[in-house]
């Protein structure tokens, strides 16, 4: 089980949290093609390595926050 460092509550077990997927996905600006819209809705990075992602402290303070986690080792670090 991951130990996630909530910015408000401190380190808590993973099962207090809800996973939110890739962090920092921008809403497309201006006119978009179907391809650009599909990419925004359906396509996310899926790296083998460090990944910036969102977590939601759903069973705690209900804060959304960003962490960097390694998708092989599961090591967690504060986002740079």
């Amino acid at each position, binding site marked *: 089980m991951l130990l996630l460092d909530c910015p408000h509550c401190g380190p808590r077990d993973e099962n207090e949290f809800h*996973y939110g*997927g890739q962090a920092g996905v921008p809403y497309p600006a201006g006119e978009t093609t179907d391809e650009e819209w*599909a990419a925004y*809705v*359906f*396509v996310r990075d*899926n790296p*083998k390595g460090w990944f910036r992602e969102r977590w939601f402290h759903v069973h705690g303070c209900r804060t959304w926050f960003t962490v960097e986690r390694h*998708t092989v080792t599961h090591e967690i670090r504060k986002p740079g």
Partner: protein
Amino acid sequence: MTHPDFLWRNPDPRPAYDVVIVGGGGHGLATAHYLANNHGITNVAVLERGWLAGGNMARNTTIIRSNYLWDESAAIYEHSLKLWEGLSAELDYDLQFSQRGVLNLAHNLGDVREGRRRVNANRLNGVDAEWLGPEEVKKFCPVVNVSGSARYPVMGATLQRRGGIAKHDHVAWALARSADGHGVDLIQGCEVTGFEITSNRVVAVRTSRGRIAAGKVALAAAGHTSVLAAQAGLRLPLQSHPLQALVSELLEPVLDCVVMSNAVHVYVSQAHKGELVMGAGIDAYNSYGQRGGVHVIEAQMAAALELFPIFSRVRVLRTWAGIVDVSPDASPIIGRTPVDGLYVNAGWGTGGFKATPGSGWVYADTIAHDRPHPLAEPFALERFTTGALIDEHGAAAVAH
């Protein structure tokens, strides 16, 4: 009958092949088998980073069924089930394919409505399906707790009698032996590290064992598809997650069917050897680590004990995880890619084992003719742009 020392050769890669399949799991081996058997294409290599069928093919819970909701899914999974029904004979190998029946339990009114709808949809598509009330469930599977006071009351179940299990290792070995017998090179310990693309056409793969020229390149790498596609400059709508499973110690025969429950996220069968095989839902986060959280296993076992109080003293022998590539609509992605000569077969998520022969069949046909097989056409990458999704989150049976 004496068993041969080796069922396939262990060749070094040659400099060029007509078709290079990336991934030596069930789907890659089935694709090689059908390329040779159905299309006479035998100048083929299957490249496997580790050892043959050592990824998800060795980690799944071996459940086979075709009771999906939508027409497109019913067609491809039913095609696969029909192939399973003849596969032991076709491959001349006992796959221990056992059509013992698959129950999908309903625990609330929503489940009941969804289950009955799915039974009707299945029957309209020629897929065998029945709706059982609680007493009929008890009769079919006596060890399930159907009492009204159960934490997860059993309000009925769908039953596909033609569904069941098979011995995953035997499937891989038989497909590998067949492909090898047709002259296909199965190359283990060979990691693909890049693609050579000229004028938007793939011409070769770079590997840990050198450059291999290829007329066509077919990805069949499950959880690692995104990593490979990125080397070809493609971003695919896939996310890789751990999917955990476990087995118990060996028991006398106690459960002679497959029991699945969407609502409580557990699916159970008893392998021929005697161990109970259970699967969980995916771990929520992206991972390539082939392991997940203990709390996911704990929740799954808690649900299993509510459904099967008789298992309360059974010991867990081991747990593990495989990396599954999940698509946004819980349906696979099969077909051509924006790069000419490069094909993708991915996104089977939590349910790829059952599709092994069907997937190989349509993928081989797609590669051989450079156009989608009719059963694969709805599963093309373009559906995420057109919006023609095939939403199987209900029938996929595992939370995505």
